[in-house]
């Protein structure tokens, strides 16, 4: 009984079940993966019991992996930039709409989240393929002679990922717009600012926290996305997650796959932390 009455122990007791679930479902696999990444693999002997850095040495010494990592982050960066460019104005337009339109447009924005990513990506495959809808249309209109190559390109992946990720950006920016004092726009207007100036000088700067958190979500989800690059990139445009998948399921080199996965995790986290630091330093006082 005394355990329950002690107020210091109570929070731990109450959050205990959730913590246990969290530990067993999230921490355990990560620890296992990290451990696995230090083991060695030989084609005939399978996974050895000895620990070593051989997988990391192999990855860091091979330009092939650098290329894959670089491509992954460029795709994630491109997706993030597109999401900011499209998502921020879209969130602002929705914010300015009347209540009826606003709820309808929010539904339109969030609706796709209810559909599986695989289904949506297959939809893009139908659009982007060599005999896909877009190429078909352009050919029939005689605007192009040979089909544009859009499937199995980084550009195609960025396009489809943007579609998948943009709701997260809109939601994040929308939340920071909701926190703004609507009178601050009117105040700027009364001081002589036109609509564009109001947006650029008053609305946008106040959205920076939302854009920042939206970018973090979009970037990390895009960098670790699997279904979209797997379907639209296939074997030809490999990204880190599809490479890990291949190591695990085709080459059966689990330790190497684990090492790549660990490197992806570490590099995404490094980029996120650095990005947050950078923005916090620049906007520190104003955005606390």
């Amino acid at each position, binding site marked *: 009984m005394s355990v329950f009455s002690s107020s210091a122990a109570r929070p731990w007791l109450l959050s205990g079940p959730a913590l246990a679930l969290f530990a067993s479902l999230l921490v355990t696999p990560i620890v296992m993966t990290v451990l696995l990444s230090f083991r060695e693999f030989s084609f005939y002997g399978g996974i050895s019991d000895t620990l070593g850095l051989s997988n990391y040495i192999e990855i860091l010494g091979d330009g092939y992996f650098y290329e894959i990592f670089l491509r992954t982050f460029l795709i994630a960066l491109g997706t993030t930039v597109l999401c900011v460019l499209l998502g921020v104005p879209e969130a602002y337009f929705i914010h300015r709409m009347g209540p009826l339109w606003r709820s309808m447009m929010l539904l339109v924005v969030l609706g796709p989240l209810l559909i599986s990513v695989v289904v949506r990506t297959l939809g893009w495959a139908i659009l982007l393929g060599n005999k896909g809808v877009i190429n078909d249309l352009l050919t029939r209109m005689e605007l192009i002679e040979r089909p544009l190559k859009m499937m199995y390109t980084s550009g195609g992946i960025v396009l489809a990922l943007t579609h998948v990720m943009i709701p997260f950006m809109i939601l994040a920016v929308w939340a920071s717009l909701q926190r703004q004092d609507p009178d601050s726009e009117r105040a700027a207007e009364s001081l002589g*600012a036109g609509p564009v100036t109001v947006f650029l000088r008053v609305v946008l700067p*106040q959205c920076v926290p939302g854009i920042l958190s939206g970018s973090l979500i979009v970037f990390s989800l895009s960098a670790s996305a699997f279904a979209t690059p797997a379907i639209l990139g296939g074997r030809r445009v490999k990204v880190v997650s599809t490479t890990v998948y291949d190591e695990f399921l085709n080459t059966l080199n689990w330790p190497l796959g684990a090492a790549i996965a660990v490197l992806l995790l570490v590099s995404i986290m490094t980029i996120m932390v650095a990005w947050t630091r950078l923005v916090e330093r620049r906007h520190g006082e*104003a955005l606390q």
Partner: protein
Amino acid sequence: MSFLDLRSLTKRFGDISAVEDFSLSVAKGEFVSLLGPSGCGKTTTLQMIAGFINPTSGSMILNGKNLAAIPARARGLGIVFQTYALFPHMTVAENVGFGLEMRKVPKAERKRRVAEALDLVHLSHLTDRHPQAMSGGQRQRVALGRALVIQPELLLLDEPLSNLDAKLRDEMRLELRRIHKEAGVTTLLVTHDQDEAMALSDRVAVMRQGRLEQVDTPFEAYEGPRSTFISGFLGKTNTLRGDLLETTESGSRFRREGLILDGPVAHHIPGPVEVCLRPERIDLVEADEALVSGIVSERIFLGNQWLFRVDTPLGELMICRRNRGRREAEPGETVHLSWKPEHLRILPVEVQG
């Protein structure tokens, strides 16, 4: 020749009439308060002048210009919003300088004028702070500085003091008076606080349900309310329903609950009337001088004054007495009341709409 001229201003939201046939003239340099209970259309009126709401009908002339033809951003009015609406990502100096920047004032002059404005609102020491790191009163001054620095022809204030606590509100009230005196700008203040309106303004305009009921100096409005609503809204009042019996050259007589009382000179047709009597005009006297006697039912101590409720044959009367540091009547005691006939005010019976 008035500086700001509002004529028959009307705003309807669908079926709701927020402002109805509102006409008001304001002279240059004058400080006018729009006073009224919540939802009576004060903000709507101000927003129409500011240009954020389009009037359904009516005209607004400022210094000879038709305001309706000018978009909000070109009207050049200084506006202080109820929430202050400061730009949270800008420093105090950037907030105040924003309007000058929009007017493309050269940097050196801008700096000088921002410094002047901050001086006026006593904030020169906080130039580089961000609004989040400031108190309510300081934010309010930033908002004032930002509105005044563009040297507006008209300053519009929407309940600028309502978010402050009572002590700060009193201080800022004095500040606002000082700033108005120094800047000399024509000012329209919206408030539902009658003390604030009376303390600050040259004239108060009392609104009720979208209509303007009375425009007068604070003293005239308090002493000569045109309706029981205004009498009750500007300070405390006792309202008694009675029958006006006769009016003469020197006064009038009316009846209430079987008692016949003398009233002031009145020009009403004999019949049902409302009689208003301010609580501070009732004196406690000896039994033989009393117009009416009653039993104290409640006594409230307010520091500088006492408030009594007294049950009398006329009905319940509220009485205010200055605290002179003496013993005052306790609940249950009998008190004798008297007043001068000219302190009564006879008003027509309010028609409930």
